[in-house]
């Protein structure tokens, strides 16, 4: 693919939205500390919110209600617990309740290695509540696609970004192998790790398909997802969020129920993510995926 990174893609989309399409961008400390990993352009339409996480989300929702299609930036997904109320209880409900809409584009940024309240991946919570579109783009092309999707619909969208993707310039295509032993379904930054894990496993004669999960909700059980699983009979869904009641188990359930094949889930352990080992509880990296696959086979 081309030379454009995910970060540059976000910046370009944002610039056009703010300068040509009357959009808004709201968030805390946007215009400082590297302009959100260099994903935000220096142009009109940027509103610096005070450190008012609940009210800030409400203000973004209000702007959405009057048609500004705001981009609401959340530097660390953990803060979504505070930001969540206006999004979950209003933006996502207004369509079914009142027949109108509040389409907020929520840039929920995840990261790894920042301790208990800055390393979380919370997209599962938003899959749980009705009314959201939830996705996790990791490539420039995917980001463009999900932006187009947002502009074509009137739902609030949770975009589960990951810092690990910002420098990426490559598209991540599905990998379909002959006589594969297992099909991997990685989500978010674990997609980069799944590629590495598959290479490690190949050296030992274990062949993996990789089916990339971009859309968490609506989640469609297409042939693309199901066919490789019916061949390999085994699958593993991998997600950087917590495993219990999370995206990995939820998707594994859907796949298993649809195919009768054994599908495992790999996410975070049911432990706090501390800053240092032994309780760092890192997201499933290549090593962890490698081990999980070996256990299944």
């Amino acid at each position, binding site marked *: 693919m081309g030379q454009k990174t995910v970060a540059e893609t976000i910046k370009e989309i944002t610039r056009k939205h703010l300068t040509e399409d009357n959009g808004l961008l709201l968030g805390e400390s946007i215009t400082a500390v590297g302009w959100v990993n260099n994903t935000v352009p220096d142009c009109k339409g940027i509103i610096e919110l005070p450190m008012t996480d609940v009210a800030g989300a409400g*203000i973004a929702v209000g702007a959405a*209600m*009057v048609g500004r299609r705001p981009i609401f930036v959340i530097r660390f997904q953990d803060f979504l617990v505070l930001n969540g109320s206006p999004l979950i209880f209003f933006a996502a409900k207004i369509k079914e309740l009142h027949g109108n809409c509040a389409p907020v584009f929520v840039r929920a940024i995840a990261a790894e290695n920042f301790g208990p309240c800055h390393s979380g991946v919370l997209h599962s919570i938003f899959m749980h509540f009705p009314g959201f579109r939830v996705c996790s783009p990791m490539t420039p092309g995917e980001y463009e696609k999900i932006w187009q999707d947002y502009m074509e619909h009137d739902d609030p969208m949770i975009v589960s970004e990951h810092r690990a993707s910002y420098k990426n310039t490559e598209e991540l295509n599905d990998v379909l192998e002959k006589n594969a032993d297992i099909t991997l379904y990685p989500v978010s930054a674990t997609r980069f790790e799944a590629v590495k894990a598959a290479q490690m496993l190949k050296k030992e004669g274990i062949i993996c398909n990789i089916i990339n999960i971009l859309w968490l909700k609506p989640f469609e059980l297409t042939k693309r997802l199901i066919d490789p699983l019916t061949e390999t009979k085994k699958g593993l869904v991998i997600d950087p969020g917590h495993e219990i009641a999370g995206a990995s188990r939820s998707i594994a359930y859907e796949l298993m129920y649809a195919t009768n094949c054994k599908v495992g889930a790999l996410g975070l352990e049911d432990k706090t993510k501390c800053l240092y080992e032994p309780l760092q509880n890192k997201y499933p990296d290549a090593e962890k995926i490698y081990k999980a696959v070996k256990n299944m086979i």
Partner: protein
Amino acid sequence: MRSPTYGIIPNIAKSIKSDILLQIFNNMCRVRYFELGLIEAFKEKIFDKFVYLSSGQESIAASMSLVIPDFMIFAQHRCHSTYLSFGGDPVALRDELIGLPSGTSGGRAGSNCLQYHKNNMTMFGHHGLIGENVPFGVGAALGSGKPVVCFFGDGAAEEDYVFAAMGFAVTHKLPVFFVCEDNNLSVLTTIDKRRSWSMTEVAKGLGMPAVDITDDPWTVYRKTQELKDTLPAFINIYTCRAYWHNSVGTDGPPEWDRFKIVKDELIKLGMGKQIEEIENKIKTSMEQIWDKKLLQKLLKK
């Protein structure tokens, strides 16, 4: 502080044109008689969902709606008076309460979540979380540049996101009117048990004009005229709800009955005949809306 006379401008009624006085009374009657019909229907078990009655508090929206009719409205759960005074259709409200598709939200939302987007009135529907309408209203003013009024109770005023949003409105000089309908109660807990501070002082501290007054409609009318030109602004209005927090019961007479006080004053001002006509006309029309046979037909009971 809290009293039926707090902050009333002396002889205020005499300085307001009689047609305005009558329009305010007309609005108050719309709410009072709509809700009397509602209460009957509720008691007859025509419907059984939560209702949050405005009776007792009618004077606030009744007067403000005449000064700021074109503001976008963000109300919270106790919103029948806002809806009816700013021009919402009582039939659509009735239908919402009894769950018909012709209701304000297709009969899906109910008493505490009214919306109206017709006849030059823009009222956004609530969802049930007190005070969240305030940041929404502030965001709508930011996004549209148009004036907004946010109505909320003394309980909602305590929600952290309410004054965070008010502060944002000051910073960005947004045209938002913050109105606290202060009935001294959050469900049944009085303010003295909940906090030691005044919302009006908080609003002043944030840097916006702010006043405390009682729910005398003519004083509210005058103060609204003054404050609407200096937005953002805050007004805290002492008032009394006549019925339970929700549903249609009462705990004895309210601290004061503004409806009766207003009527007596208007009679003293020589408008007895006009207000009698208004009252009878509205009473009849609301009785028609809540006619039992009609309701049974609508609900095919």
